[in-house]
């Protein structure tokens, strides 16, 4: 398999091509622009189309239209741009349209800055737009995962008929790392009986989200609720790092999760039994990951690039059975592995542990 050196954002573009996606609608915004730039150069070679829309709202509604025809489609943007897309994402969720939406997070609120951030966690994991819906959210932490999870995103979108969000940041987007360009996995057969592709010779299909009566409305909501429950039961994904004997746990995703791995290794050198749970799906949040540790672990630190958003999900996952503390950097700053360890030591009074 071919191994290449690409910027994280370009990796997403390459994975989209190799996932069979041939349609991209977007509006450029730093630090996500290399995705549309890469696809603009590469898509024409494989018969794909990149269209720069008049704005983000136009782009997401073009995705809506393309998805209605059963085509694999992608858009990419960064935080303020993703905010503009929310109405379209809500409509797409309501109709059950598969699509992949990349959010290369900026730090916010407002126009914000370009440094790495995770402050769109709430927006990403609570639906983001109006109404009661969810999108699957995948959080890669290195270039290879940008590739793998982009492919996975397309398959999950088709499998469950819903928009899937790839939650990344400018640090991952701009960094170059070696990536193995794996072949696309065998995608399971998906139901395409809903696709609007010309009704000649069959009954016409309508993709719309308006419910004429409250009874129809509730029936729709119950149907979607069942789908989200099913996804919560079957699609939780996470990685564990030195958790087996852990007395303390870090919980972190994306860029900070890989920094936390260095923290864990440094802690272990000092005799501190620290482990890491790295959520891969931010929604559904991997509650199951915490089950074995709920009654075992003495304390948890949620490491985030925000005021502390995921920490609420962590507390729910462990039913507040032990102290859950927050270590965070904001505004585009990244923590070092050392400052995280110092926080762990100070918070849980561990500085007295013997060096081994």
């Amino acid at each position, binding site marked *: 398999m071919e*191994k290449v*050196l690409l910027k994280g954002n370009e990796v997403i573009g390459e994975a989209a091509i190799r996932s069979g996606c041939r349609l991209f609608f977007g509006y450029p915004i*730093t*630090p996500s622009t290399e995705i549309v730039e890469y696809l603009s150069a590469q898509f024409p070679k494989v018969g794909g189309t990149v269209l720069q829309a008049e704005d983000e709202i136009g782009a997401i509604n073009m995705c809506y239209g393309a998805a209605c025809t059963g085509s694999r489609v992608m858009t990419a943007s960064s935080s303020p741009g993703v905010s503009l897309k929310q109405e379209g994402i809500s409509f797409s969720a309501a109709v059950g349209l598969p699509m992949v939406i990349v959010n290369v997070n900026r730090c916010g609120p407002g126009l914000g*800055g*370009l*440094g790495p951030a995770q402050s769109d966690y709430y927006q990403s994991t609570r639906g983001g737009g109006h109404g009661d819906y969810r999108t699957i959210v995948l959080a890669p932490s290195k270039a290879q995962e940008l590739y793998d999870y982009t492919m996975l995103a397309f398959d999950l979108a088709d499998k469950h008929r819903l928009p899937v969000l790839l939650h990344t940041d*400018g*640090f991952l987007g*701009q*960094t*170059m*790392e*070696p990536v193995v360009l794996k072949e696309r996995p065998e995608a399971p057969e998906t139901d395409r009986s809903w696709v609007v592709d010309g009704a000649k010779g069959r009954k016409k299909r309508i993709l719309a989200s308006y419910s004429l009566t409250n009874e129809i409305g509730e029936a729709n909501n119950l149907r979607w609720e069942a789908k989200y429950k099913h996804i919560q039961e079957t699609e939780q994904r996470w990685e564990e790092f030195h958790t087996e004997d852990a007395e303390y746990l870090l919980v972190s995703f994306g860029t900070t999760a*890989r*920094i936390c*791995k*260095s*923290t864990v*290794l440094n802690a272990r050198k000092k005799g501190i039994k620290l482990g890491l749970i790295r959520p891969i799906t931010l929604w559904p949040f991997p509650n199951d990951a915490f089950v074995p540790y709920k009654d075992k672990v003495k304390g948890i630190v949620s490491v985030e690039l925000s005021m502390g958003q995921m920490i609420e999900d962590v507390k729910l996952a462990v039913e507040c059975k032990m102290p859950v503390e927050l270590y965070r950097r904001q505004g585009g700053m*990244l*923590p*070092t*592995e*050392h400052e995280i360890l110092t926080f762990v030591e100070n918070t849980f009074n561990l500085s007295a542990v013997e060096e081994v």
Partner: protein
Amino acid sequence: MMDKVILAGFGGQGVMFLGKVLAYAGMGSDLELCWIPSYGPEMRGGTANCSVVLSDEEIHSPVIDQADAAIVLNKPAYDKFAPRIKPGGVLVVNSSLAKLDEVREDITVIQIPATEIANEMGNTSIANMVSLGALIPHLNLVDLAKVEKAMVKLVAKRPELLETNLTAINKGMNYQG
């Protein structure tokens, strides 16, 4: 084993390219690596920096707190990054553009008039490669042969640049201060 290297200078001095040479040298020998550019507003102040982490095992934290080595191509880059070298590390300074009053004694500081050497070669823009030459003997995971292989790949579209770059690197390697 790891090499955490910071590269810094003015925009236009070929700082990102310097990083790419190291990154491709790592690629060529199947190392794990991260090439991390400064981007966004950082790039718009006229200074450029990037960092490269090379490792023979998986790289977890890509954030360089303390670097093993650095190349600084001008005085502002020296001022910013000299304190970020770990004790025992190596700092290559382009002394044509950075006159130093005092230097840290707990690191190896190599002062090389890279811009003057590049000018003598008739190509001021290869001061970056002269400086790289001075650093190569101090890296753990990259040697001249790997850099040469990487260069062949990087200038594949403009092969006339290959010899110039390699000559510059050699001049840097053989410079006696």
